[in-house]
């Protein structure tokens, strides 16, 4: 592919007089993982939601693969985003149907895309459970019976099953204990690499950013205050806020 898969230009989201996102531009290239870090309330999640079409931006454009999402009709945007862009919620309970079996959760988007063969659907679901290290014997269990880490892995399987080209992740390791976080990160890194996904991952955890992201944006008060290669930003922070952020992490 020749250009960036996602281009965001001067994106703004106002709530009344407040500007949650105050004019952000960014590019994501195929196969690249872009991290967005910043403290709570810095506009990271709003930015991600605006890219995913979950909130309507007040100004600016979001161009996916040459098509401006903000200009598309609701139905076309919804279809395009449903087909091509995956969204991993911080809380797996927001991204899963808890009253539907694990297999059903993975198969749902495939059925939305037109798959109508039960045997094939089930086999695909099982293969995805394998990939996210959930036993095939759990395929008929409801996710409400799963641990938090398993739920998050199932959510990732559900999102990746339709093979999106771009995946947006909002704090994918939030609310998990550190050993489970480490395993999940390992898994994510493997999948991203193997599938050549473009990913935008929002996190306040610099460790997650360090492990996953190739490039990093630092946000504060709705603006990007610093950007660059991950190691460069974290090891040699230029902006005062980034310096504060990096020095706030306890070194164990």
């Amino acid at each position, binding site marked *: 592919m020749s250009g960036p898969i996602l281009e965001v230009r001067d994106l703004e989201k106002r709530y009344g007089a407040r500007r949650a996102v105050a004019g952000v531009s960014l590019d994501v290239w195929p196969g690249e993982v872009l991290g967005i870090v910043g403290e709570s309330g810095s506009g990271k999640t709003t930015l991600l939601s605006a890219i995913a079409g979950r909130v309507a931006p007040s100004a600016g454009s979001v161009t996916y693969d040459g098509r401006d999402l903000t200009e598309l009709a609701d*139905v076309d945007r919804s*279809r395009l985003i449903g087909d091509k862009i995956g969204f991993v919620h911080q809380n797996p309970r927001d991204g899963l149907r808890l009253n539907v079996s694990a297999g059903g959760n993975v198969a749902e988007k495939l059925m939305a895309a037109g798959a109508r*063969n039960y*045997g094939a659907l089930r086999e695909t679901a099982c293969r995805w459970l394998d990939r996210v290290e959930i036993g095939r014997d759990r395929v*008929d269990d409801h996710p409400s019976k799963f641990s938090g880490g398993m739920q998050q892995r199932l959510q990732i399987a559900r999102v990746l099953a339709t093979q999106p080209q771009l995946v947006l992740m909002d704090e994918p390791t939030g609310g998990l204990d550190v050993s489970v976080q480490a395993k999940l990160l390992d898994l994510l890194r493997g999948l991203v690499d193997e599938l050549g996904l473009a990913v935008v991952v929002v996190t306040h955890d610099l460790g997650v950013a360090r492990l996953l992201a190739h490039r990093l944006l630092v946000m504060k008060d709705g603006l990007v205050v610093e950007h660059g290669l991950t190691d460069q930003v974290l090891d040699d922070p230029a902006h005062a806020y980034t310096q504060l952020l990096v020095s706030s992490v306890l070194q164990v």
Partner: protein
Amino acid sequence: MSSGYNFAYLDEPTKRMLRRSLLKAVAIPGYQVPFASREMPLPFGWGTGGIQVTAAILGRDDRLKVIDQGADDTTNAVSIRDFFAKTAGVATTLSTRDATVIQTRHRIPETPLQHGQIMVFQVPIPEPLRWLEPRETETRRMHAFADYGAMHLKLYEDVARYGRITTAYDYPVLVAGRYLMRPSPIPRFDNPKLDASPALMLFGAGREKRIYAVPPYTSVKSLDFEDHPFTIESWDRPCARCGAADSYLDEIITDDRGGRRFVCSDTDHCNQRLDAKEKAA
């Protein structure tokens, strides 16, 4: 016909409002049209939606048949038939063939419907997506965008848990290739009768204030999987009364020692077959 009532109980502006909704429903097959549902002299859940639709379409020359679970002689069927005999003075009938309007709960008659006949269904829950999406705003969006992938989930869950599709009634259908529709709680045995039927099918949900319709000769497809195709129920014995092998059978418990028999749920169909047998004998 009793004096003191307007023809068919409802006042004319109300019937006009209902007819506008009905026309819209027929124009957009399977689409749920909101209407200003009225209080009726029976509780929600007993057929208030069906009664309002029937009241709106009834003319003085109509012959009305009312069935409940296929039977003409159950409480609700008798009451609703009497209600219209009293308030509209229309002729009533038990015969499917003679009726011009058939109000029903839970069944479509076995006797094939004809062009010019109108079926009126009583609907408890009109929204097929409600079981997985409680928000009305969201289900409306799903209908508008034809975003129906989630609907196969229910069937997937059936097969995953029981090895076959177990949804036995209110089996979801796609109308005219566009709108997903609940056919009301008819057994899936009756779903094929909806497809390309020569009769007009009207659905009224009183409590939920929705009307929808399947016009004559419209495609109605039951959802299924390629490797688990849609099938209808079958029984290993014929009707104990008339011997029909191709009708929907009810199980009747005959004593408290496990005795049971299976008879047609459509009483008119069963009786006609018995009459014909007697005549032949």
